[in-house]
């Protein structure tokens, strides 16, 4: 297994290299000019040209790409064109809010979705099943920002229980940290709950048809024990897979959620960087997201071994 883990980690290197080349090329050919944005609306074309030169944007593609790769190999992701701050510093400033949001959303979604999926499978074909699945379809269909606005209107503006916006670091205390994350996590988790609940239901339906479940029932085991201990464990592989895939959804959803709730996270940093053509920041963020995604896929693959000892690599 160790050899497999090492192999997989080494396999991320070419993946990241391809991502790096792709991102750099895409940004190079994309229209837009950070120098024009920096110079402002009153700037003359001569001003813009001069700023382009000082930023090194007038140099050939290969020179810029080579320099960028060389710097990355030395753990230097460059400096933001706009803020003048190192990309690593900008990412470090924003990583806690985004990871907090993703972790809370993930926990919230799993805690809600898995029981819903299990219950729906157990009561397949009944009103409960249909109600849960109708909720799942609704969850898929409603955009994150709509859920966000509705939650903010009810729980912040009308009931005044929670803040509308912002983020408090965990170092300020668990409740202040949590208070700012409840609404965004609920909004972002909506679609995720729908996804996990549907997959859990499908996987559980298959497992519940197995002979060993009938045997367990014949032995007189309680339904709760059968469902959550015996059946769920064997249905876990597709559920874990979809949780892993869903991390990509979370990253995409975080961009919208962070804007709606004014959370200073990586999602907003990404949007700001794209709109201003802040190339070093975009490149750094895409590499980070790609790395996280590759890492999560690796963790999912490793989880298969734990969940199903029959799987060997």
């Amino acid at each position, binding site marked *: 297994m160790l050899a497999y883990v090492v192999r997989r980690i080494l396999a991320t290197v070419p993946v990241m290299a391809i991502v790096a080349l792709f991102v750099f090329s895409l940004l190079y050919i994309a*229209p*837009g*000019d*950070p120098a*024009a*944005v*920096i*110079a*402002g*609306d*009153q*700037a*003359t*074309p*001569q*001003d*813009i040209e*001069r*700023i382009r*030169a*000082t930023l090194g944007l007038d140099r050939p593609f290969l020179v810029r790409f080579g320099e960028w790769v060389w710097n990355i190999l030395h753990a230097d992701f460059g400096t*933001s064109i*706009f*803020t*003048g*701050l190192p990309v690593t510093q*900008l990412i470090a*400033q*924003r990583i806690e809010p985004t990871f907090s949001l993703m972790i809370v959303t993930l926990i919230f979604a799993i805690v809600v979705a898995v029981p819903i999926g299990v219950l729906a499978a157990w009561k397949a074909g009944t009103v409960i099943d249909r109600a849960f699945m109708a909720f799942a379809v609704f969850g898929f269909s409603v955009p994150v920002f709509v859920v966000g*606005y509705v939650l*903010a*209107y009810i729980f*912040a*503006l009308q009931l*005044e229980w929670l*803040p*509308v*916006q*912002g983020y408090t670091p965990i170092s300020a205390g668990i409740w202040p940290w949590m208070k700012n994350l409840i609404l965004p996590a609920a909004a972002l988790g909506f679609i995720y709950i729908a996804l996990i609940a549907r997959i859990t239901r499908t996987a559980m339906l298959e497992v519940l048809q197995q002979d060993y479940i009938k045997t367990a029932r014949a032995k007189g085991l309680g339904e709760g024990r059968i469902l959550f201990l015996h059946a769920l464990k064997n249905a876990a592989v597709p559920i874990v897979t979809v949780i892993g895939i869903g991390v990509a959804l979370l990253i995409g959803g975080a961009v919208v959620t962070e*804007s*709606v*709730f*004014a959370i*200073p996270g990586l999602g*907003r*940093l990404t*949007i*700001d960087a794209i*709109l*201003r*053509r802040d190339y070093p920041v975009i490149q750094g963020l895409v590499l980070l997201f790609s790395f996280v995604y590759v890492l999560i896929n690796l963790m999912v693959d490793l989880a298969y071994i734990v969940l199903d000892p029959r799987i060997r690599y």
Partner: protein
Amino acid sequence: MPAISQGAAAKTIKFVPQANLANFDPIWGTQYVVRNAAALVWDTLYGVNDKLEPQRQMVESEEVSSDGLTWTFKLRSGLKFHDGAPVLAKDCVASLKRWAARDPMGLMIIAQQNELSAVNDTTFKWSLKKPFAKMLFALGKNNSPCSFIMPERIALTDPFKQITEYIGSGPMKFVQKDWVPGAKAVFEKFADYKPREEKASWLSGGKNMLVDRIEWIIMPDPATAAAALQNGEVDWWELPLPDLVPVLKANSNILVDIGDPLGSIGSFRMNHLYPPFDKLKARQAILAAMNQEDYMRALVGDDKNLWKPLPGFFTPGTPLYTEAGGDILKMRSIEAGKKLLAESGYNNEPVTCVVAQDQLATKAFGDVTADLLKKLGMNVDFVATDWGTTGARRAQKTPPGQGGWNMFHTWHSGADCINPAPYTAIRANGDKAWFGWPNSPEVEGDIATWFEAKNLAEEKSAIDKLNKDAIDFVVYAPTGFFLSYTAWRKNISGIVKGPLPFFWNVSKSA
């Protein structure tokens, strides 16, 4: 809330600015949001008051030689930078050199300067080859870039490179460690700031800080900002979306009023280099047919307090405002436009109309223009894009079919349009002009006449002629004058209307 916490909260203003403070060098980055924050941190030698007259600010006195060629400035005593160092004449010299390299008025001064140098620690002089009557206005104007004074070591930075140290001598210090670009910027009261004794008026007079801390909270989503203001999570929202203003007005804890009386002038520019708008009559056809009301309603809705028709190029309500020569903009006749277009020889060439969809104003203006062009029977190539792409594309001088353009939409801050000095968009000096590259010696001659004007009457006369010639030549098409609201909670007092949010003399009760 405990009494101590209430007191602390009352000493902090939470403010939602118009945009993200993505950089903090007011010379390198000329966006208005940077200038607005910079006005807290850096002071200026002069500052305009609400009549747009330059008043002494860091300067104690000035003297101009009888031939108008040498200006001598003496600094007020006791001025300090935030790092404790005294403000010296050499700091002013270095700061003015950096500013002048990036500012249109500064460039004009440089073009005719002999020397800018420190005489001693408190005095510096600027000697010129010919008189520059607008010197004090240049040093005190409120449009970007303002001539902010920085320590010499910082001001020696190349004006096309960003500074990394934010030390000024203004009433607030920038808390660099708390700056999260795109999310938050923090300013703390500078205890050693020495305000002037005169009453504050815009950028002039006593900048007395009545709060200890100002937090800028960046909120990209207007609905979130509206909710945060209603919930009391923020105190002041600089630029509410017009659609959300009725909700704010309905809240008894919130006050709403016009923010910047100088407002903005909407515009679209036509490319003078390529058909069809290389022909004067084609450009005039657009002016004759367009209806500014359509543009303004598309942007601000039915609120008549928020817009005015603008048969000219200068900011309404300012001393040089004129409608001279503006009759063509009052025609609003598609038929007249069609006639002029036919006379121009328009041959159904595609008109590449670049419209940024991510800016409220450009999106609204672009949709109206597309409709106008179709009504005129023109072949519209509507390019829906974002502002970043527009910024790059408008600089392209290649033909429209090869990455260039025929039209793009934008707007100008009213502060930039009060006279020709900061007004890059009205220049018509061909290759050196703003995008669209109009070339009209008459317009340029009028601008030169204004610069040499010795009194307001002469200035007005020059501007009347400039306005007429610029409209006749169609330097660009003004789509109207529009204003914006600002909104704040009732426990904030002292907010004044102005071209930027002035925080001095603003207080907050618990």
